[in-house]
């Protein structure tokens, strides 16, 4: 136990006016909520991976085993690779925005008209 309330204090605001970057601040608020949920899903996935590795190794499991678990280099790399793949999936839209800068794409409606020309 502690005399300080971590639930209230952990998420405290830093002194200094907060900048918002997106055109609509509500979209940015929603983005920060989505990324916090993404973080918690990554936590659950890492815990599940720990449970699976412990079961593979020992066939049984306790909460203390989970807390004490430390992956060796090969396992840590596999878990890190999963996280890279996960973030690539979650943030895919930004990858596509970047690719679109170079692509010189046309809308299908324009292409349809072009293809209909005789």
């Amino acid at each position, binding site marked *: *136990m*502690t*005399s*300080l*309330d*971590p639930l209230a*204090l*952990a*998420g*405290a*605001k*830093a*002194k*200094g006016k*907060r*900048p*918002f*970057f*997106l*055109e609509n601040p509500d979209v*940015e608020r929603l*983005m*920060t909520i989505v*990324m*916090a949920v*993404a*973080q918690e899903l*990554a*936590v659950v996935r*890492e*815990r599940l991976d*720990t449970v699976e590795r412990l079961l593979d190794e020992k066939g049984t499991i306790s909460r203390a085993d*989970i*807390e004490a*678990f*430390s*992956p060796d280099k090969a396992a*840590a*790399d*596999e*878990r*890190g*690779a999963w*996280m*890279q793949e996960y*973030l*690539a999936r979650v*943030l895919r839209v*930004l*990858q596509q*925005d*970047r690719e679109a*800068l*170079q692509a010189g794409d046309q809308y299908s409606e324009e292409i349809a008209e072009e293809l209909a020309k005789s």
Partner: protein
Amino acid sequence: MSPADGGRPAGTAPQEPRAYDGPPDYRVVGRHGVFPETSHDEIARFNFLAHMNRHLATKVMPGVKDAYDARVEPAFAKAEGRAFANRHEVRKALLKDPMFQWWSALRRATMEQRQQAGRWVTLRQADDLNARIGALTEGDRRLALDPSLDMPRYVSAVDHHCMPGSYHTELTKGDATGAANYDIGLFATTGGMLGRFNDGGGVAVARWVKKNLPDFEPKRILDIGCGLGHNVLPIAAAYPDAEVIAVDVGAPMLRYGLARAKTLGVDNVAFVQGDVSKLSAYADESFDWIQSTMFLHETSYTSMQAIFKETQRLLKPGGVVLHVEQPQYTDDMLLFEQAMRDWDAFYNNEPFWTKMHEIDLDAFMKAAGFDGEALIHGGVAAVVDPEVFPEAAGDDEQEDYGRKAAWHVVGARKGAAQAAAQ
């Protein structure tokens, strides 16, 4: 095909898994004696954050440069009929571009998530942690706190790098949780690039001095703006016979710093609370080496001038002062790079960063009385732990403008003749 070959066409080799190039698992972090307890899931949060920072730097930020080249710069040139004149014009144009907006929004959110993650860990065990640190530091003459110290405006105006409470706030009596939060989050924010004990900068400085000033045998060393001491401990360890005094404004940092140093077996550092622009407690010419590491950018022009004068006064003849910082903005640095480096100044609560990086540091040193010919310039890169991060030593491809673990050294060696003439 047989079951043994996994159903692959005859003669084909199994595909090797993709070579992993991401940050190390947080569990390899260096745990000293007052490192907070971290649960499995708290560590997993740090792992996510290390990956987010790496993903933003390597996958998203290059898109900002692409967008700048493809549309931001051309649009400005078309609208204004001229090129950008300075980095602030570049930044203000970038602020209107969706790629910069999303990268920035995600980077800011990740910084805030990192603070929440670290504060949760330290605050849930605050009483236990503070008691352990109190037991290690109470009655120890190497901790000298000054509760009457007035915080400089550069500290009180804003919480640096979005760290709630900054370096100095005490949430309870004998509090050190702010320092513990700073300490445990560094490894996640940097993805281990500062080493297991986040001391890669200090290790690099100590090696730089041994290599470049081989005749230098400091007996008394002053570290200014020491924070929790992660960069001064390698210096103290490199010169174990030297007396080292580390000064900072933040009591939580100093308490934690001494406790951390003791459990790491570094016993020649005293942690002193004070404003480093006013070090009247120390006599003229009483230090051989004065060091600051990533500190000046968190001060002000007025304080910097006073600090440089104090270092000139405090140095012994033949003594050395070294300031380690990210590189200055010079005419040969692209305006885009300058604007990106300014991100932390405007959007991560490091306001003086932009001002500090545009000045002529040599001129400031000379104005404080250092002989121009005695000025020192160099470069250092963080020393990492090769068993954790074998590829990091040669990692030059990742540029995270302003956050890369490679710095410039600006300093001076006080001439004996000059000192005698005063």
